[in-house]
């Protein structure tokens, strides 16, 4: 196999951290190469250098035998590098064709472009009408828009950053068919992920990064997932454990909860019902944008519900706001750390006050006790091993994982009776994620009822007693986690959302 892209001794340092240290890597023509590593291992920095977003401090790159140092993404695209980002940059209110035209340097006329889009989507088994409005598309279809946008430029190297994080298992299968077809035509793919089974199913070679350095390479098919995980993390992983499960009486009940979404392209909740017992962890899976944010808002009190749809210990709480619910013991931690769970520019002390005021007795007659809030922040920092110089530091100065530990710790330490968390370990490194999961398990063991909303199915399988999936605002009936197959989970998540399989 001839070499397409080769990186030699690539190094990039930011103030205080070396993001990439002497990285060497080579991708052959028609090879699917996995780039594996934890969050913060330097995967993003590396692909940004290839895509011309970041300039390396030292080292060299060659592309198809020639020295390659793109000063900007445009140059990288011209050379034949395409990238599909993890977070889509699409405008909800525009059509597929309009979105694609916006990302092109020399966009052809709309008619011509629409024809080319149809052509490419047929060839690669990515059925998609150019006239549809992006706001109406599922996450998998939105990803198709991004992929087609890249394929229109006929790339020789396609970079895909965590492409499956927004897909159901069935949608993943469809994507893999497309990628295999591309490989068959000689297109190289750099596939970034931390999902090991996927990499074993798809990739020809893998390079593993840890703390900016290459710590190993392997042929994924011949390596076990556990071995790859340990290379990635650098230590033997301890899986969270819970001892005996003893469920108590029902504390939280949702009875046909239906609510419109507050935002135009949000998802309304449709007839969501479940009953949650003391000591139980209910895992709620589903592709992002299927009502997760709305469900959290309905449970935290940010969105009010009509009487009777939401009951805590038999008492209707739908009309109560977040403060009343906290008083009763219903606590929540939203997905978005900066700006929703925490105020970015405020100190950790102030962020501890944000939700701790009532239950921690940080407020009396409306007057705030700042020394006590500082003490509470300090307690969270110590109990959850939050790495920060102290509670006076601004929330945004913390790394994602540390802030997430702070946010989860803040709620867990308030001794909730019901805790609802959305994406508790999103963007968090493996050891912090394990600590957070353990804290949730301990909380349940101590008698609290926990709802974990997550897109990480492995996480849900690991910690939850029962599993349900949100799909288009509807919640499937919860089923015991034990014995669930990937196939069943995928169907609960809505299967392939009616997407056609690639015609290869």
């Amino acid at each position, binding site marked *: 196999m001839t070499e397409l892209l080769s990186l030699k001794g690539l190094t990039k340092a*930011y103030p205080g951290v070396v993001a990439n240290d002497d990285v060497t890597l080579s991708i052959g023509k028609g090879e699917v190469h996995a780039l594996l590593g934890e969050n913060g291992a330097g995967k993003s920095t590396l692909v*940004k250098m290839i895509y011309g*977003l*970041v*300039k390396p401090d030292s080292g060299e790159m060659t592309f198809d035998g020639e020295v390659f140092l793109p000063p*900007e993404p445009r140059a990288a695209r011209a050379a034949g590098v395409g990238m599909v980002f993890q977070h889509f940059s699409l405008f909800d209110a525009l059509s597929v064709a309009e979105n694609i035209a916006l990302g092109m340097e020399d966009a052809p006329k709309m008619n011509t472009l629409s024809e080319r889009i149809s052509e490419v989507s047929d060839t690669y088994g990515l059925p998609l009408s150019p006239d549809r409005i992006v706001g109406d598309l599922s996450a998998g279809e939105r990803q198709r828009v991004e992929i087609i946008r890249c394929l229109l430029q006929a790339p020789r190297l396609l970079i895909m950053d965590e492409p499956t994080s927004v897909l159901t298992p069935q949608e993943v299968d469809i994507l893999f068919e497309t990628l295999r077809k591309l490989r068959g035509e000689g297109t190289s793919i750099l596939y970034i992920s931390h999902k090991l089974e996927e990499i074993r199913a798809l990739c020809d070679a893998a390079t593993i990064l840890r703390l900016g350095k290459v710590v190993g390479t392997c042929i994924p098919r011949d390596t076990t997932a556990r071995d790859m995980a340990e290379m990635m993390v650098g230590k033997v992983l301890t899986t969270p454990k819970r001892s005996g499960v003893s469920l108590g009486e029902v504390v939280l009940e949702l009875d046909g909860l239906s609510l419109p979404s507050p935002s135009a392209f949000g998802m309304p909740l449709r007839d969501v019902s479940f009953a949650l017992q003391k000591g139980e962890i209910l895992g709620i899976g589903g592709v992002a944008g299927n009502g997760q944010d709305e469900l959290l808002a309905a449970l*935290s*009190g*940010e969105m009010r519900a009509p009487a009777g749809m939401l009951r805590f210990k038999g008492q209707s709480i739908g009309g109560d*706001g*977040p*403060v009343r619910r*906290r008083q009763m013991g219903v606590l*929540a931690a*939203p997905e*978005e750390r*900066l*700006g*929703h*769970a*925490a*105020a*970015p*520019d*405020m100190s950790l002390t*102030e962020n501890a*006050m*944000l*939700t701790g*005021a009532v239950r921690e007795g940080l*407020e009396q007659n*409306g*007057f*705030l006790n*700042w020394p006590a809030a500082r003490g509470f922040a300090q307690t969270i920092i110590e109990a959850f091993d939050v790495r920060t110089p102290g509670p006076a*530091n*601004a929330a*945004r*100065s913390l790394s994602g994982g540390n802030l997430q530990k702070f946010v989860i710790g803040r709620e867990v330490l308030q001794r909730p009776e019901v805790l609802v968390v959305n994406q508790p370990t999103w963007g968090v490194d493996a050891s912090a994620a394990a600590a957070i999961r353990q804290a949730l398990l301990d909380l349940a063991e101590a008698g609290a009822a926990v709802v974990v909303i997550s897109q990480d199915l492995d996480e849900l399988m690991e910690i939850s007693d029962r599993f349900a999936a949100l799909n288009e605002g509807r919640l499937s009936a919860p089923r015991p986690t034990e014995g669930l197959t990937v196939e069943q989970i995928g169907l609960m998540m809505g299967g392939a959302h009616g997407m056609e399989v690639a015609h290869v």
Partner: protein
Amino acid sequence: MVRFEKRPQPSRLFAYATPLLAVLATFFFGGLLFAALGKDPVVSIVTIFWEPLFGEFSFFYRPQLLIKGAPLVLIAIGLSLGFKAGIWNIGAEGQYIMGALVGAGVGLAFYPTESVLIFPLMVLAGALGGMLWAMIPALLKVRFGTNEILVSLMLVYVAEQFLASMSLGLLKNPEGFGFPGSRNLQQYPSAHNAEIIAGSGMHCGVVAALIAVIFAYVLFARHKLGFAIRVTGEAPRAARFSGVNPSRLVVFCLGASGMLAGLAGLFEVSGPAGQVTIDFNVGYGFTAIIVAFLGRLNPIGIVLAGLLMALTYIGGDIAQSQLQLPAAAIQVFQGMLLFFLLAFDLFTNYRLRFGRSEVA
């Protein structure tokens, strides 16, 4: 290449140094401006900043500082409540006028009865007038999602028309020989907002401003309402998550700022101005916006900024009469102050980096 880089934490040093740097830069560039107009820059700056405080006629100017500063501070404190929460009341001038009209109207209705109850009643009426005027943008925003900036600003012009109608009609002095304008409240002891100590400039409005400053300080430092305001300004979703009701906050912030603006109007019309006339309002409501930002939306800062702004007004008048500086040049000078303040403010959250730019 020079570029800005976001600081991991806001710089405390710059938060405090910004006003000082802005004043110094204004001295420098204002000096250049005055020099370009053919005036001695040092003399001009000294005339504006030194003369009112320590010059020959300072006995006259110093009380003026309180008289001009008090309404600015009173209004700016109210505005700062909303501004911190991202609720933009731009119509304080209108609330100031309505407070003055309602308050003066109550006083004039009792003329010529003398009673100690009349002035307190006028104060209440003034506060209510300003508050109700501010309730219009507040309720429209809460109920229909209208933009409070536009509504409150446009209501200024409505209030001005109202003021003209009142001073030419309903409130016109029957013994005023047909001249527009109401009776002079300075000559109606029960309704006169007289100086507490003669010749000091210290009238009830100054006291009210000080009380407002203390209230605002405690509110922001210790009370949950102040905290709710700050969180809403910093991160609205986080505020909602913590349990803040955004609608109630809009009503509170606009109501409180309208009330304080109305009070300022009442104290002005019953004291230094004395009379409801077509143009008794001199733009305090708009200048207070500058004062609020110059004072970094901080109660103590607003006091200093209000005094500084009053000083440039008084000094500017002196410079106009003594040095024949054009009024427009003084306004440019005041504008520079706000401009430099906002410019230097960037450094609180950003720092300069020299080197190649990079999209990371």
